[in-house]
């Protein structure tokens, strides 16, 4: 009976509901090619959501990730105007992401400053660099082979490269989180950092690693996004930090740390992705969708607590009635 009120079950039922509603709105929604192509809209966010699961489970937060995307994209665009080849651009994207994440992690762990404070500063710093480099211009000159990452399909199938990359990443992250000691250590840090430290877990180094990983995945997402839209503006990926954190929290990862799993977030990624796609089908403007994301974020945190309260009151009543017998 317990699985019925599990968070993942609730999410999955919502997911099925969204699919039903979407296919009612448009008869073409359930088309194989359409479903495959609709994943283009949220795979970049999904790839960042994976390391953000680690960040939030370890009790931290990173709101600079959208700015890291902008930073990576600008550096790739800059390199591209100097004639750097596709593989070079990919390398630059990854390295910039790693560097930015590492910088966040270093400041947070070496000076022992809350991640909120540091990533607010670096959010402004990274996007600031993008604005200084680009001003009101845009980079649009990318090599034609670069388009594969964001627009390409695997072989002659209709399966997007992005989707395959996401599945590979998911498997790796799921193994790390659920069947390695590193994963257990991340949970331990989130539950009680002091206790974790006294148990001999290198808390600072693991947090540093997690932030660097977030930077790296933001870099990967930046490559996919830049390749997909084929241009870089300084406001690229604006507001994504909200959407990604919403996805992760809706997936059942406790914002206070120490709790959550990959499966819930995967369902949440597709739930939100198809929900946004469906809203797009009925012409809901992006800014209105943001109202929805914001509301969902708040509800996603309020609801589990509400359910827990009800459960507790039920078990209290049971104990009482048993006591009377």
């Amino acid at each position, binding site marked *: 009976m317990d699985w019925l009120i599990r968070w993942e079950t609730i999410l999955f039922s919502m997911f099925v509901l969204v699919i039903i509603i979407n296919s009612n709105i448009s008869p073409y929604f359930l088309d194989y090619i359409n479903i495959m192509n609709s994943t283009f809209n949220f795979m970049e966010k999904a790839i960042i959501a994976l390391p953000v699961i680690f960040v939030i489970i370890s009790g931290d937060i990173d709101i600079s990730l959208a700015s890291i995307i902008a930073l990576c994209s600008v550096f790739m665009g800059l390199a591209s105007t100097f004639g750097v080849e596709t593989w070079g651009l990919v390398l630059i994207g990854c390295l910039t992401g790693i560097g930015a994440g590492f910088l966040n992690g270093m400041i947070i762990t070496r000076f022992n400053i809350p991640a909120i404070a540091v990533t607010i500063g670096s959010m*402004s710093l*990274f996007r*600031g*660099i993008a604005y200084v480099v680009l001003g009101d211009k845009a980079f649009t000159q990318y090599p034609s082979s670069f388009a594969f990452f964001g627009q390409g399909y695997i072989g002659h199938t209709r399966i997007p490269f992005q989707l395959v990359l996401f599945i590979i990443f998911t498997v790796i992250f799921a193994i790390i989180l659920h069947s390695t000691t590193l994963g257990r250590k991340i949970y331990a840090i989130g539950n009680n950092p002091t206790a974790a430290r006294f148990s001999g877990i290198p808390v600072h180094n693991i947090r540093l690693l997690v932030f660097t990983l977030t930077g790296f995945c933001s870099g990967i997402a930046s490559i996919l996004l830049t390749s997909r839209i084929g241009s870089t503006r300084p406001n690229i990926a604006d507001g994504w930090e909200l959407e990604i954190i919403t996805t992760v929290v809706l997936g059942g990862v406790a914002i206070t740390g120490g709790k959550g799993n990959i499966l819930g977030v995967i369902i949440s990624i597709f739930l939100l992705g198809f929900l946004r796609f469906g809203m797009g089908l009925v012409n809901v403007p992006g*800014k209105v969708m943001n*109202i929805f994301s914001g509301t969902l974020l708040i509800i996603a*945190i309020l609801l589990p*607590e509400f359910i827990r309260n009800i459960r507790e009151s039920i078990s209290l009543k049971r104990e009482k009635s048993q006591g009377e017998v």
Partner: protein
Amino acid sequence: MNLIKRREFTLFVLIIIQILLITLRAPRFLSILNFNDILDDTAILFMVAIGQFMVILTAGIDLSVASGLALTGMSVALLNQYHPGIPVLMILLLSIIIGFLLGSFNGLLVSYGNIPPIITTLGTMSIYRGLVFVLSKGAWVSAHEMTETFRSFTRIKIFGLSLILIISLIVIILFSIFLYYTRTGREIYGVGGNTTAAQYVGINLKKIKYLVFGLCGAICGLSGFLWVARYASAQNDTAIGFELQTVAACVIGGASIAGGSGSILGVVLGALFLGILKNALPVINVSPFWQMLIQGFIILVAIIINTIMNQRSQQLIIRRREL
């Protein structure tokens, strides 16, 4: 000796150096007229930074200030457009009420919903910004759609000072009195300084947290009206990114993100520092696109300095105890 050690004094010296450096490159920067302009331009930042400061004092953060400001600004601008008969003072009062309600919503979620402030306000930041769009249907309210009294309200001069600056000064003085000389004000400091101790002393944590968000919202509401009136246009992206400036003003002014420390004077000086910087960039021929980068850099440096100073003072306390 004590004066020189204080953060506010260091910041004051820093601002003087800043002005001197700018003046070296552009001598016309140093004039009373120009300075008056900078103060008028920074008046809103002074106020909202104080609102943000109160939230930060309780170890929270409000990322929704800019969206709340924009939403209130758009509401009163539309009200003015469709009901030009409503007196401006009434609109001013209304903007404070709307702002307070928006802030209260944050406060309710934080104190009674137990959602961390950063997540709450990240959510409401988009909700309020989206509502601006819904309310305005994507259109602007431009100068010609506003009444003359609405537009010129902030420019009324009293003793040579513009009304916007006077309102800002009143807010600064009122909240200084509130934070330093009332019981609730001291409780706000107490909550951030040591939450557990504050609870044992009998401070109502939920009430205080609700209150700071409400007050911050009220200030944002008032600022929303002043912003729209001063720039004579209400847009969908009014004040976008402004929340970062208010956080920057607080941390430059010595407020700790962990709560419980900092002063209003420090925050005002922090805001002044940013205001001068913003106005100086075009004068010394630096593209305004640099502002965000410099701001981010300053936030990071200020946070690191604050942390090191705090750790030092804690070590001092421990050493004194050992003696």
